[in-house]
């Protein structure tokens, strides 16, 4: 076990660091309101960045060269994303497609039509979104109701999805539908990929509490999908869901954001009578705890990658990693605004430290505890799959989907 860069890794790090510095997009050129994620300006800059990476062999580093990757190692991939983060690049557009959905599609489909979607995704020409959750099916991800009914070579889709990150900016989606409501709920699901401009499909942005429109509702009114865009077998969509969620846990383990060093910068910038907040023993304790959790989360990410690189499915430590991350992020946002004192209420791009990034984190972290599996669901996973405790009494097990109580 070695967490220091080996000489080759250090050389790789030095190489990508200087390449990133020389090639990265300059967001300062954009109008202020277009520098934010989920705006067209930001998205286009990141699209360009993905193409630049792809040309230089830095997109999908671990994928084989034939599939558009660089044939590199997991460690190289991690080093590259660490350096990207360090360079201030925040790109939420491609992770869903490249780390979660495309790998799932490739696991189940090897037909030319499906595989044709891979290269443009790698080059950043096509953005993907995940169309799983529904109004009555979030934590209970097998409880979905969007129906797909076979009609010759096509399927007719009717229903609604919700909380779909980036759907308004996406070109393609991976959709899970119900094909047999008379089977128990996990058994009657089928997955498809589809173009987001397919007739009958409508995306409506949802404003989140932070004020952005990352999330969306997606409506399906007799949307037609050809059968050759089905992913996996009919009524075996649950396997696709599980594969995607496994990929998601692994991907989540890597994403970053404000962390202990940003908090130390903030602490050092806030004056006290005889120094700065950095001199406050209570704050120093906070930093130490924050560091331990942030590091643990990063290292748990390595354990997941170790499993993946050995060809094993990532274990439930992913749940621990996500819980640690969501907890520390809300704690960080809360502490940051508190240490500013009454001034912490100010959320202004000029007046607030880091242009209000800490206030933004304070608001956004509430969603982090929900998206990608809630805190409570992650704890259930740990209790049941790691500790072997019995599951909750299930009233929906083995029951035809139609007969499950739903509260409305």
């Amino acid at each position, binding site marked *: 076990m070695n967490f220091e860069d080996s000489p080759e890794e250090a050389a790789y790090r030095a190489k990508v660091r200087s390449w990133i510095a020389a090639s990265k997009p300059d967001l300062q050129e954009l109008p202020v309101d277009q520098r934010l994620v989920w705006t067209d300006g930001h998205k286009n800059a990141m699209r360009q960045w993905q193409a630049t990476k792809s040309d230089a062999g830095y997109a999908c580093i671990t994928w084989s060269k034939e599939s558009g990757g660089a044939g590199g190692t997991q460690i190289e991939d991690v080093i590259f994303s660490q350096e990207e983060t360090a360079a201030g690049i925040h790109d939420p557009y491609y992770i869903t497609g490249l780390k979660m959905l495309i790998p799932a599609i490739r696991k189940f489909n090897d037909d030319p039509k499906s595989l044709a979607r891979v290269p443009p995704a790698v080059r950043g020409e096509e953005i993907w979104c995940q169309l799983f*959750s529904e109004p*009555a099916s*979030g*934590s*209970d991800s097998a*409880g979905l109701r969007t129906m797909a009914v076979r009609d010759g070579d096509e399927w007719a889709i009717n229903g609604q999805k*919700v*909380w779909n990150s980036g759907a308004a900016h996406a070109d393609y989606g991976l959709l899970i539908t119900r094909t047999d409501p008379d089977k128990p709920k996990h058994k009657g699901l089928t997955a498809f990929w589809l173009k987001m401009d397919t007739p009958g499909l409508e995306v409506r942005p*949802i*404003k*989140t*509490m932070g*004020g952005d429109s990352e*999330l969306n509702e997606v409506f399906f009114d007799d949307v037609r999908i050809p059968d050759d865009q089905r992913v996996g077998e009919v009524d075996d969509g649950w396997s696709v869901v599980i594969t995607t969620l496994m990929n998601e846990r692994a991907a989540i383990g890597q994403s970053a954001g404000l962390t202990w060093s940003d908090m130390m910068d903030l602490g050092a*910038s*806030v*004056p*006290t*009578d005889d120094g700065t*907040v950095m001199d406050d023993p*209570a704050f120093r304790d906070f930093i130490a705890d924050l560091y331990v959790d942030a590091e643990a989360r990063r290292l748990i990410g390595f354990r997941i990658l170790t499993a993946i690189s050995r060809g094993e499915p990532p274990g439930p430590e992913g749940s621990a990693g996500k819980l640690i991350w969501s907890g520390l992020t*809300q704690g960080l946002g*809360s502490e940051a*605004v*508190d*240490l*500013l*004192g*009454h*001034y*912490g*209420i*100010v*959320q*202004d791009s000029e*007046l607030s*430290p880091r242009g209000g990034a800490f*206030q933004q984190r*304070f*608001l956004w972290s*509430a*969603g982090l*505890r*929900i*998206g990608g599996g*809630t*805190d*409570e669901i992650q*704890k*259930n996973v740990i209790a049941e799959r790691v500790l072997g405790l019995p599951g*909750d009494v*299930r*009233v*929906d097990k083995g*029951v035809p989907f139609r007969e*499950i*109580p*739903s*509260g*409305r």
Partner: protein
Amino acid sequence: MPGIAGLSCKAGRGGKGRTLNFDYTDDQKALKDEARRFLADASPLTVARGVLDNPEQGYDKELWARIAEQGWCGAAIPEAYGGHAFGYVELCALAEELGRALAPVPFASSIYQFAESVLHAGSEEQKKAILPAIASGTSIGTLAVTEGPGALSVKRLAVRFENGTLTGEKLPVADGMVADKAVVLAVSSNGPRLVLVDLTGSGVTREAVSTLDPTRGAARISFENAPAEQLGRDGDGFELLQRIYDRAAVLLSFEQVGGSDRALEMARDYALERYAFGRPIGSYQAIKHKLADVFIRNEVARVSAYLGAWALSSDASELPVAAASARIAGCSAFWLAAKENIQTHGGIGFTWEGDCHFFYRRSRHLGLAIGPAKEWKRKLTDRLEVQRGAARAEGKAA
């Protein structure tokens, strides 16, 4: 709750002959019920949303007028200064209801902070001149203390009071755009002073700043030789401010209790109605225990606030300790209730359209208003040390 300590009667420490009735009296309860009914009609959450979506308003004018009509602004202001002198416990009861309704009005700034400053530190003429308009709600006041990031410090105060004028900048000033008067903490050649200033007068420029809780606006206020007068005749402004803050802490803690209760009720209602895996989510222990934890913090906040109300209404020497505990308990209860309310709601709790984030925002707005809980923890421990030292010295002398 028969049997636990009337806020109206003294629940002093000695225990000699104290009536155990630690609750609102029947009259106070009636007032509180009436306030709840009134606010259910006058201040549904759509009113807060109206201000959130149009933050340039800073507050809801019509609601403010209706609240003023009820006489609430003068609840704790003596009749001699145009108030109704219902009493402090009554004001606390109203604060609890305003907190529960998330009323988007400058009540906390004008009443708990500005009016308390004038009552506590002002001269007789100042009280007579200023308080009647505050009590009737025709004038709005605020307290301008903060100048920049970090804990309040006399050493770093830059706003100066010299020759009857004020110069410098305060940021943020709660309700600073809608107030017409302010009490300002400033340094003078005699040390820190509390100073009264007319915000509509010369030498004052203000600009709205966006904050975590747009339903209670804030401003950046610059003074340039703005005419001002000292509040009261003498007294160290920083010391006075601490005593005013203690009073405001108790009143704010009631708003926090009201907000926490409401957030818990929302979460409970949703947990009953939302199904996952074929069962109401409230049937999962993860949700039950979460909401039970919130309930416990709310109860801690409630009893701490009650003791604070008693100390405030009876000018008890226990006020500094009781106020600090009420503040700490109120901050932690409202934060927990607000964030776990979102969590219980899942995705819908994270949306702008849902109401959960109002509470999340308001909990932090109130939690930072007179300095964060961490500053009050330091104050509380200091005060406990002093109290214990005094008790020991008394014991030795006896």
